[in-house]
């Protein structure tokens, strides 16, 4: 019983992290129609900005996390404004642009910080033990931050004019334009919001796992799987799918082992997609 509860807690923790990553990824696709291959790069950059802020600038960890969010959001804003904006309707061009940006980011980080994992530790250590299971305090805090951030994204999207405008653009761009919504002002903001989320995830998650220049590769792969499972462009779908993937991953790894667990995860995702090719919330695809 303890094992089942522990695996569930691990799964929820994984799901929250995946949700935060997938939200940004799906937001960019939903609003701009762009598949952001640099998403893992912003995660890595968030981690390194946080690491630099703590280790070189001597800032407290919470300020370092804020710095990571601001830096990644600012870079995302500029990148969209300068490069993506001009080719926003050309899928091949935006794909190449984001792949190029990812290569530049990971190589830049490699050149700046070296290839070895950075010594970036979470400031809170120890675990809460109770009822035969445990939760590291750091994981609990990260889970809290992820849940708050997800709630904030929902708040922005569903309770603000900015969110309504973004959803309108995702629903039907020509009609939204006719209503006076200006994509060239909102697209960079959506991009910044998404990359800021990736940066936030990087700054809070890498200290509890590992931070090295290429950890973004697996992040991109996971984000893809979650977003496709949830239904491309669906915010709700991505959030639900993230927790589904997190829980399946945790239970299959714990009870089947690392190799069979990974296989089980992909098989289950495949089965879901066979049953529902447009993803769990496919009807909402391309809607925010």
């Amino acid at each position, binding site marked *: 019983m303890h094992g089942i509860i522990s695996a569930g807690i691990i799964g929820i923790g994984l799901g929250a992290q995946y949700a935060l990553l997938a939200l940004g990824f799906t937001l960019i696709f939903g609003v701009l129609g762009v598949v952001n291959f640099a998403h893992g790069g912003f995660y890595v950059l968030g981690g390194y900005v946080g690491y630099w802020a703590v280790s070189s600038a001597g800032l407290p960890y919470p300020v370092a996390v804020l710095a990571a969010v601001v830096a990644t959001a600012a870079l995302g804003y500029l990148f969209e404004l300068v490069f993506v904006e001009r080719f926003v309707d050309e899928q091949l061009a935006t794909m190449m642009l984001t792949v*190029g940006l990812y290569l530049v980011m990971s190589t830049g980080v490699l050149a700046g910080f070296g*290839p070895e994992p950075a010594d970036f530790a979470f400031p809170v250590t120890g675990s809460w033990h109770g009822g035969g299971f445990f939760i590291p305090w750091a994981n609990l805090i990260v889970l809290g931050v992820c849940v708050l951030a997800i709630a904030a994204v929902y708040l922005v999207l569903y309770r603000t004019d900015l969110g309504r405008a973004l959803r309108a653009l995702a629903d039907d761009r020509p009609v939204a334009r006719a209503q006076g919504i200006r994509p060239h002002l909102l697209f960079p903001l959506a991009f910044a919001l998404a990359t800021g989320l990736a940066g936030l995830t990087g700054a809070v998650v890498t200290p509890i*796992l*590992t931070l*090295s220049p290429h950890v973004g590769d697996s992040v991109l792969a996971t984000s893809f799987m979650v977003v496709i499972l949830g239904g491309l462009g669906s915010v709700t779908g991505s959030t639900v799918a993230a927790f589904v993937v997190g829980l399946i991953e945790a239970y299959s790894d714990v009870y089947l082992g690392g190799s069979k667990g990974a296989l089980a995860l992909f098989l289950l995702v495949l089965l879901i997609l066979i049953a529902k090719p447009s993803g769990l919330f496919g009807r909402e695809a391309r809607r925010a």
Partner: protein
Amino acid sequence: MNAGIRFCLLATVAAFPFVLDAAPANSGCELKLGMIGPLSGAATSWGVALRSGAEFGAAEVNKTGGLPVGAEKCKVSVVSYDSKYTADGAAAGANYFASQNVKFIIGPVGSPEATGIKPVAQRNGQITFSTAYAKNAIEPQFPLAFHELSGPATWAPPLAKAAKEKFGFQSIVCVAPNDQGGTDIASVDAEAYRAVGIKASEEYYQRGTTNFAPIIQRILNQNPDAVDTASSPPGDAATMAKQLREAGFNGVIGRLGGPGTAEIIRAVGGVEKLGNFYWLEIVSTDDPGVKALWEEYKELMGQPAPDNTLMIPAVASSRLLLKAISKAGTIDDAAKVAEALRSLPVEDKNLGKGEWTGQKIYGINQELSFPVGMGLIINGKTVGVQKIDTVEAR
């Protein structure tokens, strides 16, 4: 061509990170030593250590005016290739080096890489000096493939016995990635533990895993006395050790596999928090000669050596390889250099006397063998490195 596409092309070309070092142009005889290994990903520190060892070997020779080859003195440079710990990466690296007329390669590092490179390097006429722990790291049908250090079949039995004597544990889980770089080592480790009466099980995970929480939970469900991270890349082993301790695991952590102690200590938060830990040292690092190497490196290279001991066999094999090239009097004929290499006595300035081994385990005597060590941290205190005799297994 519009600005966006131009940016893409420039970015892609600028960031293409495979060839990280270019050899300086030299008007006289120039010998390029290739280095193939992971320079990105979780196993990066092994690749960096190997590259540093090769660069140090080259710098030593260059300091004396170059390597005597026939009537010439050749300047030695090192070119490196990021094989990303993959078979195809290592094979592509060998082909790239063949196009650059690089005949001598230090590396690759891991078992998948060794499997990928052997046939390609043999066909290209290139000598390789791998550190892979694969059960077939070297084979009689690939006479140009050499091995820098002893493999698990040599050191696992005496180390498992020594670990049991030191910590008295009765059960252990050996955890490693689920490819040849993991299974070929963890299975040998587990067998060695079983041979001394320890109940051993094996756990494998998908390479590329970043969050080990589910694997750790699975290990804890087995309630073992000890966990051996075997040949897990240093970054993975460090995360696992950290998560094990955070989960309240107070048992012994071991590492009979690749070097990575510094990363593990750092991740866990210091020696005190690590508690009881033992690990394979691929050479006996407390020997004065080995200790002196770190100082020599700093003096010659102007920077500290990487804190990964895989650099040490890379230095020894680079030195021996360069000596063989000089003896053979050619920088083009790998077969002739291999012949010279086999005939050279194994004696290193820092490591002392060693020997060519491998006949018993691989069927070919092309493994550089020096005494290994077992590092120990007991109750949060560093005890040092104990020399381990591997004669029986060899």
